[in-house]
């Protein structure tokens, strides 16, 4: 997408203090990387009225404070525009001015996963459904580079795109009341990792010993939208020994 397209915004309000931005043609395919870069750019510039910027798939959602936006407007502007419209104008000019500083290459992060057994109770069934051997299912799951399309559902939970089509799985008919932290699951055409124990309906195929969310860190979520990740199969012994390192 060319730079001029970048500032061609398609915006709709999300209530009275947030808006959802799509870049370029609204029908353009999702580009989570570009959305993540845009959100990051807005955060770095950090206008005072901006409370948050969060990217997901093909959108950036901006939470703003209409009172602070109003305070930044002249008397004349106030009679012409709503804080919502002023915010759009500000975002447009920021992106137009700053697009050349867009973030660099995405990070590539390896996530160790112990597949199957007690860590991946649904692996066997998932492989059967996919008409694959367990081994090929795991190899396929661990082969692509995935993109974090968004962090959502709970703190640090990555929604990953890039799942090989043949690995798609339906959600479980009745969700588990407790999915252990670190569980790697598949739902529809997406794969993801549970940072906390929680109820959940994804098919569980393995578990990572990595901590995805650490509230004491400056960057609490291990992963960010736009990151690339790879799953690296590890054995049960490595999984159990992980904490000792």
């Amino acid at each position: 997408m060319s730079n001029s397209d970048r500032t061609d915004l398609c915006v709709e309000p999300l209530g009275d203090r947030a808006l959802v931005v799509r870049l370029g043609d609204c029908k353009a395919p999702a580009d989570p990387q570009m959305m993540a870069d845009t959100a990051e750019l807005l955060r770095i510039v950090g206008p005072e009225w901006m409370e948050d910027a969060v990217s997901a798939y093909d959108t950036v959602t901006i939470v703003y404070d209409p009172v602070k936006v109003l305070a930044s407007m002249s008397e004349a502007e106030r009679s012409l525009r709503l804080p919502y419209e002023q915010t759009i104008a500000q975002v447009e000019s920021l992106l137009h001015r700053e697009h050349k500083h867009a973030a660099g290459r995405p990070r590539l992060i390896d996530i160790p996963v112990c597949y199957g057994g007690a860590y991946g109770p649904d692996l066997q069934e998932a492989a059967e459904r996919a008409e694959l051997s367990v081994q090929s299912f795991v190899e396929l799951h661990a082969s692509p580079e995935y993109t974090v399309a968004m962090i959502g559902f709970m703190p640090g939970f990555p929604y990953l795109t890039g799942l090989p089509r043949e690995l798609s799985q339906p959600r479980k008919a009745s969700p588990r009341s407790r999915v252990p932290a670190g569980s790697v699951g598949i739902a529809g055409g997406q794969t993801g990792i549970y940072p906390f124990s929680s109820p959940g309906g994804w098919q569980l195929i393995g578990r990572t010993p990595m901590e995805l969310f650490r509230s004491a860190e400056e960057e609490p979520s291990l992963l960010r939208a736009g990151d690339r990740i790879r799953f690296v199969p590890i054995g049960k012994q490595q999984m159990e020994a992980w904490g000792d390192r």
Partner: protein
Amino acid sequence: MSLTVMKPGFYTTIQDLGRPGWRRDGIPLGGAMDRYALRTANLLVGNEEGAAGLELTLVGPTLTVERDMLLAICGAHMSPHMDGEELPMWRPLWAAAGSRITFGAALAGCRAYIAVAGGIHAAAVLGSRSTDVRAGIGGVDGRPLQAGDTLPCGERDSAGGARAAWQRLWRAELAARAGAQPRGRNGFAAPGWFAPPLAYGGGAADGIELRAMPGSEFGRLSAAARRAFFTERYNVAPASDRMGVRLAGPPLELSDSTELLSHGVVPGTVQLPSGGMPIVLAADCQTTGGYPKIAHVITADLPLLAQARPGAAITFRSVTLAEAQRIEIAFERDMRQLAAGICCRMP
């Protein structure tokens, strides 16, 4: 200085105004459900509006005041009492060391707030003391209060300058008034003036009216559902919590059920899952969602949503974005006036 929890009540948590700026990491805004009540309670004890206080839900706790302190109770009426006497709400309140504050069930509304001069000193996590039970962070170990918890609070965080002077004046004045009362009835004192409560519970019989602007997918509702949403009455379902207020009523039908890619959602967003029963997202809502967004409750009415308890009747009234932003700006102007008005009150 501290408060000791004798009985925790139904669901009592430490809340401030939440942790904005962390949605990228999937962390909800959180904070008080009724921000008006918490902000007002803080102003009434000379705090910054965003100091941490207690959020009480449906049934309040029993607390022991370990040292003389200035506090304020705002929000739903849960019959606060000390030594058999009812405590006045929506005003500063001086409480003597050793006194015990009890609460009952909410008479109307759902949530009440207690602010203490100097705030409650839970450790800040990612810039906020708010309890986020799902992430297990903030407040006391990321959980609701339990009997035996000790909540350090008071002077340490007191604002300097005018606010601190204001606090000292009222503390001394109310302590003197309490001391002048007969023994056994000198545990507390409060001035006659008070901050304006919101009209919680709406017009009682009619339930709560929430002003809402149509959302991006409002047009996907069937014609009948579009009419129904802004005319029918909904009831708050028991499964409601700080993440979302679930509504029961006439199911709403979508004429277009194309799946959406998830994107950001905020408190006030009204989602419509496939069952046709709307959910109004609240303070602890997830940061992203993919259900159709049929409406957004305006920010100024979120305190009313916070006071909608299971069974409460809710209706929606349609407003435009322009109206919603004008109301929000007027609401914040009123808050500034309230703050200035309280600061000017001298004993």
